[in-house]
């Protein structure tokens, strides 16, 4: 129990003005037997009522996404790892760029490992991750994702390990296993790099499911951007990376434009408040900025540093974007009007005293 009286209680001491007004009202009551004018229109009026206009005291219906910092970071890491696996295979098989392929493999396998660590950190115990493999549910993006990540991790790991072995023993079985697992990793890298868009898009959170049609592409492109950018920062100068970066940042620019030009109120968390700031910052860093830098790099002599700059922006943008969506998701579930389909008349409304609101919305943990 808090001390008594608490600070907030002390703050509510009546002032000389309010006492004077009270005195006036009292004497009026005594003189005339009634109070003719209402003293003041009380703050917070109308008194809390549950109604169509106010919902159930404005208490949000939906629960906030419970995830902490690990999950959005996982979205970014997993996306980059998935994209990297695809790049690794193509760089190996088509472009014959060994360094790129090798770096990309390391990103894939490292990303997969880091992803597991992040997920386990969110779940609390390593054993809990095993639970993900208890069933396989096509209808659950989380289940699909968990199996994909597991398979992807194994394939990427096998591919990397095989390559390591091959540098010493270039035996055929190792080569076959290496090539197959590289192919598997690339194949699984495709869903891994963008399934997280499905994961949050196909949910009850309004701002997420409103964007369900673009979220997977958006998250995929964001992952691609991150993957490409990391590879570039590792010293890969393959032009294909720049072109892939251009593709990703072009899409991100388009996505950002799309969101900004859509006035649907469900999208408000993407534009206002903390989540809006994050979204915009993430958008600028992963959309127009790297796009311009990369385009410039195509024509510039100083392409290397331009690309590295773009890569830095891209990574930051990719990570920020995931945090932005998580934050927007939280803000979206706080808006009780959305699931109840009640019009927003916020400007006319005065908020309830903060204490009361918090009491209900954020019950103290037992």
């Amino acid at each position, binding site marked *: *129990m808090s001390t008594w009286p608490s600070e907030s209680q*002390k703050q509510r001491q009546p002032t000389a003005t*309010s006492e004077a007004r009270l005195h006036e*009202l009292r004497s009026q*009551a*005594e003189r005339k037997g009634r*109070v003719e004018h*209402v003293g003041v229109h009380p703050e*917070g009026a109308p008194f809390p009522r549950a109604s169509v206009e106010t919902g159930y005291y404005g208490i949000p219906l939906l629960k906030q996404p419970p995830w902490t910092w690990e999950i959005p970071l996982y979205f970014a890491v997993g996306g980059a790892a998935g994209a990297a696996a695809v790049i690794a295979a193509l760089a190996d098989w088509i472009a014959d760029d060994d360094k790129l392929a090798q770096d990309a493999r390391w990103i894939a396998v490292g990303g997969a490992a880091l992803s597991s660590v992040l997920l386990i950190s969110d779940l609390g115990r390593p054993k809990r991750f095993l639970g993900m493999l208890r069933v396989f549910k096509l209808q659950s993006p989380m289940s699909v994702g968990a199996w994909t990540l597991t398979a992807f991790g194994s394939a990427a790991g096998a591919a990397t390990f095989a390559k390591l072995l091959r540098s010493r023993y270039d035996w055929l079985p190792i080569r076959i296993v290496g090539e197959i697992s590289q192919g598997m990793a690339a194949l699984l890298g495709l869903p891994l790099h963008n399934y997280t868009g499905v994961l949050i898009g196909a949910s009850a959170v309004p701002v997420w499911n409103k964007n369900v049609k673009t979220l997977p592409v958006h998250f995929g492109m964001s992952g691609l951007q991150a993957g490409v950018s990391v590879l570039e920062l590792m010293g890969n100068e393959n032009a294909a990376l720049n072109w892939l970066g251009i593709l990703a940042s072009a899409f991100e620019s388009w996505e950002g434009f799309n969101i900004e030009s859509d006035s649907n109120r469900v999208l408000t968390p993407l534009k206002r408040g903390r989540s809006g700031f994050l979204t915009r910052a993430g958008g600028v860093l992963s959309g127009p900025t790297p796009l311009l830098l990369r385009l410039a790099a195509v024509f510039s002599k100083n392409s290397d540093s331009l690309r590295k700059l773009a890569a830095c922006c891209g990574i930051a943008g990719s990570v920020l974007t995931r945090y932005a969506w998580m934050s927007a998701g939280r803000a979206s579930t706080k808006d009780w009007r959305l699931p109840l389909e009640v019009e927003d008349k916020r400007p006319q409304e005065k908020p309830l*005293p903060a204490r009361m609101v918090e009491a209900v919305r954020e019950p103290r943990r037992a």
Partner: protein
Amino acid sequence: MPGLGTSFGRGGATTAQTDLARADAILIMGSSMAENHPVGFQWVMEARERGATLIHVDPRFTRTSAMADIWVPLRPGSDIIFLGALINYVLTNNRWFDEYVRHYTNATFLLRQDFKDTEDLGGVFSGWDEEKRQYDPTSWLYEESPEKETRGATGTAPTAGGHGQRGGEASKSNIFIKDESMQDPRCVFQVLKRHFARYTPEMVEEYCGVAQDVFLKAAEAFTNASGPEKTAAICYAVGWTQHSKGPQIIRSAAILQMLLGNIGRPGGGILALRGHASIQGSTDIPTLYDILPGYLPMPFFDVGTYTWDKYLEKHTAQTGIWASYESYIVSLLRAYYGDNAKKENDWGFDWLPRVTGDHSQLGYWLQMEDGKMDGLFVIGQNPVVGAPNGRLQRIALSKLKWLVVRDMVETETASFWYDSPEVRRGELDPKSIATEVFLMPAAGQAEKSGMFTNTQRLLQFHNKAVDPPGDARSDTWFIYHLGRLLKDKAARNRSARNEPMNALQWNYPTEGPTAEPKIDEIDWEINGFTWTDRKLIKSYKELKSDGSTACGCWIYAGFHPEPTLNKANQREPKDYLGHGWGFAWPNDSRVIYNRASAAPDGKPWSEKKKLVWWDEQKKTWTGLDRPDFDLRKSPDHPGDLRNGKGVDALPGDAPFILHSDGVAWLFVNSGLKDGPLPAHYEPLESIISNPLYPDHGTNPAAQTKQRPDNPYAKQPNDPRFPYVLSTYRLTEHHTAGGMSRTLPHLAELQPELFCEISPELAGELGIINGEWVTITTPRGIVSAHALVTSRVRPVTIGGRKIHTVGIPYHWGWKGMAQGDVANDLLAISEEPNVRIMETKALVCNLTRGHRFPDGAGALEQFQREIQRVA
């Protein structure tokens, strides 16, 4: 319960909760039944769903109002105006049940010439002694009724309690004169008509703040649901009783139900709703100062009943059940003192303590405050939160030498010496409090066997499941072993003063490792047995005045007729009234006075509303309930009131067998200390003056106990305290909170003190919902969160808007859910009959903000605050 006791004979609910389902209308007033008795309320809901009209009269719109068809908001404390108007409505619109009223009530009885009504004397009845501030009820007697010749026979002494009052003590009321035409101006019916003539719908509108159409809607609904084919019930609780005129409010309801013919009939009656598991039990087998088990009064000095002969003479009636008074008291004394009770020593009557003053709780608490008491046992109660004027309650405890508290948790009462508001304010200092405190852990109901008597007089046994934890013990264990130790001490000195202790029968066998007394043995003693061969008795009718029977509570006699048959522990209900489950006193009748459910000729008033009836073939009373009547007495039995004796002297159409005239009393000829009929008086603290009797604003017989530590607002209309204050309870908590505030699952539901005010008042004072407000009365200051709600609304009285502040009183400074003690605001006051305090209608001030800090200067601020004139 003198309100019901004097009207009908027994101080208990006349009906059962299950029977409410058969009502055609239910008036709930002075109670929020859905809120405080939710499970009992299922029967009201059942009635509602079957088409009954539910009327809730309450200043606030409560959970009960939310279930009602008609909600009538009225000004707190104006209940008698409202009920009086209902009575007047019945009388002026010819709605009374004529045959019922003529045969089963004293409507036809003539009153004495010298009786004068409040309407004649401007607010008091004849017999008022302004100096002593008490009534002499001689003039209220029936014409020709002989007065009894004991000292104080005509006076109802100021110290005498009301629990034992069943009416008629002052005379032989079996002798009277009737006017069958009910036209004589001195007959009760005509007196009643005149008395209530001023209680009109206009009056209700003006002084209850109830619009006439709303009143008429309720009146129509209730009276239309009464008659041979229909019945209506009334439920009340402490919303009626905790007034300075509580029993008279209940009397108003009783009069209404008598006129409408709703007593003793299915779906009718008056249900007193009790707030504790065994609150009925604790008056039946009392832990009260003024009565012995079975409502046998204690010996009193100022009514002259301190000698055996006078005691018997005063309490024995010629006719009716009380004719056998001697066998009840002798059997009790036999149970108390065993073989030491002998005819020669008046069965040990002289060993009983005599009541010489106001020994009620509030009375002795003031003695305690004055430093005149040594010790106190508090068992399962939390008075420093639950009793009025909490500050005085707590300070008084600091003046004791020793205090024993038994409870399941550390209550505020046990901890007053180190963390009460007085200690925090610097008014009390642990280092200067001499009180020795013993806090004893008590067992819960799951950890002991025993019986509760519920709100409908039903004895129900609860079986022990597990042992209590640690050193927790049942109260039976505590009392038994304390008694054992004390008897050892007494045995060392066989002086006269130790005689009662030495004579006391106290040899209960024990069982188990903790030496828990065997509950069966105590139950057998309560049930009663023959003294010589120890055979359990089956009915109170077997009790004898020659000492051959012992019985601890005559009204419970027969609940344990065999050593292995405890009817309170029966668990096989056979019918809707629940026969076969538990045992209802008296004699397992679930609806009492049920002879009245049949017409004088013994046939049910209607097929639809039959309950018990006379079976002409078998020459016996029979029916759905156990008849509360002599089974073999035919309806045409003439009786012999003038010369006969006992129940046999009552005629076959007299359902109210505890009254010596066999009828229900519209007019109470003696037994009430504040008048034979209810009259409206304002609360002891009121906003307005009494519109009916300007010279007698408040109940003249009520005691204010006004003193510097128990001050009152100026009466009426103290400008410092412009609002009406009313306290109440919530579903989520239990009284003073000892059994609910410490439980997480209950504490979280209503976690803090709050008060309810109307948006209008909030508007006038600029109060936001949820912010701190401070409520002040001359006794105390309480800060609470404001819950602004239109469920509380101001009433307009005489053009003036009167605001009500509602405050639930469950909280204290211990447990999980905490808050100021709302009862600090209340005054210690005593209604004259039962010495209850007024909690439902007082005056207060309300201001914005929290303004009662602890520490230095707090005490001075407290006093300044209270004295402050706005």
